[in-house]
């Protein structure tokens, strides 16, 4: 029997064509597809709009089965995705992307659950998307995380072998996350450290922003391939800019206005949290753009410095309340012995400072990549 397309499923459920097209627009937005104004060139047809690309895909592609595995995780990324913002989107995720295995959500337990997974792995071989939440653990052949009596390493290999693509959601699955924080007691690693013969995409964050995970799955569903990524395998539609780039406190940074302490006058006015340790300038994520819970807020807006949770090894990055290039003595305590902070505070050389920040950010990225590469080589050696 021919598999039903998503469009057919939606129509059966009573979704009108008009609502369907609206949904396509929402999805196109979620995917970060840029709208290119159609230009009529002689002899060429109009290029399709993002909505049309999405609509065409949903009309022709069957549901994509999802296998969601959890290793050393806290289920926070699962919780997050359950709060993905648009109700129509949640409808889509629950009904039209078929989540075939998900321990936190599924009805079946024990061997019935495992059987459901095995059947799915066989039936959809080469077609399903494997989503991994939580870090794999290498130490002592994987005994620090087992499910159904199997080691997490065997489970990962088994599920990855027939996957069309692998999505690592959350910092743990991407880079080892908190289990890999010093001293990494269980030798936790990222999925991409282990799976190298499949396309792997990283959706880091702690937790990952739900709309970024669903947006990436949708991108795959609609385009038939994963979005373009940066060197850390993060999809560009969501990780192309830093939190600082889109931060609503950014104008205060430019103006040299900083909060010196929680609950001081600057904090009350919404001044920049850079001196309180904000990692926004070196953190590539969509927090400040998409925000959380239907655009309600994000950490910096709520008065707390960004922890940098979408960057590799942010847990060991040198202190959440230490400014990256900020003075070690806080300004509000009377010290003016500052480097970058002083320059910014008097409003001088702002462009220079920004250039400096950017080059620092780049350096930081390079450093991370180098350390990633090192880790990879080490793993290969060990493997």
């Amino acid at each position: 029997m021919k598999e039903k397309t998503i469009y057919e499923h939606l129509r059966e459920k009573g979704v009108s064509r008009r609502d369907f097209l609206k949904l396509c627009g929402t999805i196109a937005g979620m995917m970060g597809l840029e709208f290119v104004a159609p230009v009529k060139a002689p002899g060429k047809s109009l290029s399709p709009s993002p909505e049309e690309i999405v609509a065409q895909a949903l009309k022709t592609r069957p549901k994509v089965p999802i296998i969601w595995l959890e290793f050393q995780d806290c289920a926070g990324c699962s919780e997050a995705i359950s709060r993905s913002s648009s109700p129509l989107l949640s409808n889509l995720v629950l009904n039209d992307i078929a989540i075939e295995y998900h321990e936190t959500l599924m009805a079946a337990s024990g061997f019935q659950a495992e059987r459901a997974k095995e059947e799915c792995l066989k039936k959809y071989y080469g077609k399903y998307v494997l989503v991994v939440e939580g870090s794999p653990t290498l130490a002592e052949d994987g005994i620090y995380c087992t499910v159904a009596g199997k080691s997490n390493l065997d489970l990962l290999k088994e599920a990855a072998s027939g996957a069309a693509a692998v999505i690592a959601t959350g910092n743990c699955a991407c880079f080892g996350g908190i289990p890999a924080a010093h001293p990494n007691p269980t030798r936790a690693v990222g999925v991409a450290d282990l799976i190298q013969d499949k396309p792997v995409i990283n959706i880091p964050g702690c937790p990952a922003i739900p709309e970024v995970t669903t947006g990436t799955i949708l991108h795959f569903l609609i385009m038939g391939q994963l979005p373009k990524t940066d060197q850390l395998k993060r999809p560009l539609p969501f990780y192309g800019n830093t939190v600082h780039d889109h931060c609503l406190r950014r104008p205060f940074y430019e103006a040299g206005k900083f909060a010196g302490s929680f609950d001081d006058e600057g904090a009350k006015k919404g001044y920049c949290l850079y001196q309180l340790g904000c990692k926004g300038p070196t953190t590539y994520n969509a927090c400040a753009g998409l925000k959380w819970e239907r655009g309600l807020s994000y950490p910096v807006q709520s008065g707390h410095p960004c922890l940098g949770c979408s960057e590799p090894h942010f847990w060991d990055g040198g202190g959440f309340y230490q400014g990256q290039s900020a003075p070690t003595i806080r300004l509000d305590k009377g010290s003016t012995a500052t480097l970058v902070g002083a320059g910014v505070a008097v409003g001088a050389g702002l462009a220079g400072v920004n250039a400096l920040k950017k080059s620092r950010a780049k350096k930081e990225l390079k450093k991370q990549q180098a350390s990633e590469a090192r880790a990879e080589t080490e793993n290969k050696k060990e493997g």
Partner: protein
Amino acid sequence: MANRIVIDPITRIEGHLRIEAALDGNHTITAAYSSGTMVRGIENILKKRDPREAWAFAQRICGVCTTVHAIASIRAVEDALGINIPKAANLIRNMIIAQQYIHDHVMHFYILHALDFVDVVSALRADPKKTSDIQQSISGWSNSSPAYFAEVQKKVKAIVESGQLSLFSNGYWGHPAYKLPPEINLLGVAHYLECLDWQSQVTKIHTIFGGKNPHPNFVVGGVPLPIDMNSDQALNAEKLAVIADSIRRMNDFIDQVYLPDLLAVAPYYLEYAAVGEGLGNFLAWGEFPEGQLNEIEKLVFPRGVIINRDLKKVIVPDPRDASRMKEFVTHSWYKYGQGDGTGLFPWEGETVFNYTGPKPPYEYLNVEGKYSWLKSPRWNELPMEVGPLARVLILYATGHKETVALVEAVLEKLKAPVSAVFSTLGRTAARAIETKVIGGLLQKFYEQLVAEIKAGHTDTFNDEKWEPRTWPKRALGFGYTEAPRGALGHWVVIENKKIKNYQVVVPSTWNASPRDHKNQPGAYEASLVGTKLANPEQPLEILRTIHSFDPCLACAVHLIDASGKKVGEAATGFNLVVR
């Protein structure tokens, strides 16, 4: 040899839980073994770090009961350093905690627990008109028309007929232990789906004060978001209005959906009012401080211990009493320097991984030896149950008026004796009763916060001890919270501005613990004994009782100090109060 069945993974929980149960010839459970199968070692990771940052690490212990470990952690550090937080900050924290309970309990009931009682496939046979009549007879909830339920039914039918059952595939549908008529099954399925949408819209308190959910941000000494009614960035009237609306949505769902559903479903499962209790010992550290952290007489949910179902005697446990609060590893994959038969007080704890289990892939665990990554915490050498049932029993025993009235109303409605509370059903009902109480408290905290702001008391952060140079050379702290799943304690040792030792005893470690040095089973293990299975291939009855505890395993497995130094200065005595 007795027949042994294994359920691994136990799904619809947080984390990796495995249950092995031995059955007699009548398919009745004679012994059960609970095993946590994942470990990360977060306490070890916390060592040598800045105590002001510990909340962020600790919070990642669990993403389902997010916030709870952050709260326990900041309280532990504030206790150690002697930091009092401003009243407005305390009210904001209480609101954050209350929202967590409500979100978590309702989500547990519908998304994690309901499918043990609601047969999704049976809902297809329902008459939507009858379901509509039932809905309209139990509450004024607006989604109640026959057309609405027909629409839900159509949706479920499309899923079933597609053959891609997705999350519903391979459930125990049609199992003889499902007792609801199709119409109530349809009601349950409709509210399962409604809950998914509802829950995505009621975490606004966390998002406003902490920037996101799960894992909102906190700060030692107060809360990160300042209050300024004349600022567009701080807590102002617009944000207060969003919060007020969110509280209304929560209370509407509790009053019009959650409680009526519980009372509509429970009469069909009264047999579960007689099984599934287990220990009869209960412990709570207490929650909702209305004064400072250690003014435990000002906790709305009291600190207490009940032994052997004796509701006449509530003991106040002292978390600093090294002679009573201990963790054992006799059956856990760790080793102690002084031998695995000894128990260690958390401030003096030590943990070294010692995996002695079978090499994966394996079929059975060796339950005679070590068989879990969970330790066995014991109070006065006794296993304890923690969670909603413990809290409600302590509130009931100490005469909390609203709780007493709610417990009695539920018992009357179900025509059940008081002893029925010591059961699987009692645990599930206690969670709902507690949610109702907390819904009222949340509204009260909100009103108190508004009153504080009106009175000009808008401080949200105490910076006196922010700078490490103001700290003593050495300090010990205990931080508590009542997580949705039960008593949670963090014990911290700070030395030379850094964390010297950090230990966590979480609800699911109490409840899911393996046997201890005296071979006493933990709460899950005890609760399953005597349960008869209709079909050992489909052990639905086990899931019902285990899910009634609301397991949360990532929390339960942890690791303490590998070097295991003694830290001393612990015992402050045993405090017995008969109320």
